[in-house]
Structures are given as C-alpha cells and as structure tokens.
C-alpha cells in the first residue's frame, strides 16, 4: 500500500518546457506539501495546502504553480523550466497541526 505516491519518478526535459508532477496520498491527511531537495541534499519547503487551500508559499518563483483538486491530491506545474530547477521534488502529507510528515519517493527533475 503506497501512502504518498508521486509520478513521474524521473523527468528529463529541455529548458523552456512546461512540466507537471502529480502527487496522491491515501493516508486521509488534510495537509500536503511540496519540498525541493537540491544537489547538496538540502530540503526546503516550497508550498503547503490544507484542505485544498494554499497555506504556505515560500517565495517560490511564480513559474511554479501548485494545484490541489481535493485534499488527497497535490500537483505541481512548472512553466518555462530553467537549468536551476533541476532537483528532486518531494511531496509529503500530514494531519493539520501535526508535522509528522510522510514523504513520497520523489521526482528527479533534470533540465537540459
């Protein structure tokens, strides 16, 4: 039983393209997150959603647009991809008020 699942696992694309990453959780959590892990493995929060409402936006370029169609899904769309966007993107979820977060397997994005 996969708790937090992301697709795709790998994504290789050219500069300037637009791409999306999808995330789904079956834990019944009501808060979902996107984290970015850079080449030095530093993990930093990008966004969080609570019951489909954007709660945290950590000064991420507006080329990144999260969308939450329901509380079990959180997608990330990235426009006009740049070389610096290459990283591993993790989706995570938790119960509101409880930061015991469960992470997905990650999506390794490579922009060439």
């Amino acid at each position, binding site marked *: 039983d996969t708790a937090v699942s992301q697709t795709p696992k790998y994504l290789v694309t050219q500069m300037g393209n637009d791409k999306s990453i999808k995330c789904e959780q079956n834990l019944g959590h009501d808060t979902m997150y996107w984290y970015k892990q850079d080449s*030095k*493995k*530093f*993990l930093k929060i990008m966004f969080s959603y609570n019951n489909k409402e954007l709660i945290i936006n950590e000064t991420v370029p507006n080329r990144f647009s999260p969308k939450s169609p329901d509380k079990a899904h959180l997608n990330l769309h990235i426009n006009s991809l740049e070389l610096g966007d290459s990283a591993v993107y993790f989706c995570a979820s938790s119960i509101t008020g409880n*930061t*015991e*977060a469960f*992470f997905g*397997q*990650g999506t390794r994005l490579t922009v060439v």
Partner: protein
Amino acid sequence: QQQVKQSPQSLIVQKGGISIINCAYENTAFDYFPWYQQFPGKGPALLIAIRPDVSEKKEGRFTISFNKSAKQFSLHIMDSQPGDSATYFCAASNRGGATNKLIFGTGTLLAVQP
C-alpha cells in the same frame, strides 16, 4: 538563514559502534524535533521524534537527547549496522495550526563499515 544547524556533514563508523549526529536550533517557538532517514533514491522517512518536555526518547537502537536550555538535540545510533548507512536529517517545527512546516538541517551522510 539556516534555522537548524546540523553536524557533522559526514560520518564513518565501524559496525557495532555508536553514531552521533548533532543539531542546534534558533527559534524557541519550535516544539517538535524529528529525525528523518533517507536512503538513496527514496524519500525521507520519519525515524524518531521528540517534544521539548522530555530530555530523552529511545526507540530500539535510536535515541534522541534534547537540551532545551542549549537549544540542541542529537541522535545516537547504538550498535550501528551497515544497513543504517543513509543520510540523516534533523528537523524542527512549530506544531500549532495549519501554517506549520518542517525546517530541515543540512543532513549527515552516515557510512557504517562492516
């Protein structure tokens, strides 16, 4: 601004030895301190966590020691095994409300030699 500082960056321990990773935080509003374990190609997985009302928490071979006055906490892995080889992240958060978020340390790459 790095709110959670973690050291060392990497650590090599012999099988059976004790691995110790240290973290320090700045924000006194933090009230939840988890440790995450990450294997290559996988997402971080919660290993053990502590709240500031206790000074120590033990789960199997893993122990968190917490010093509230010094704003420091550490992970001790007893009887380290090759299977423990992974990257370990400390983190901190303020659990109140929907705006809580995990602030991660910079990670420690642990290698346990057989």
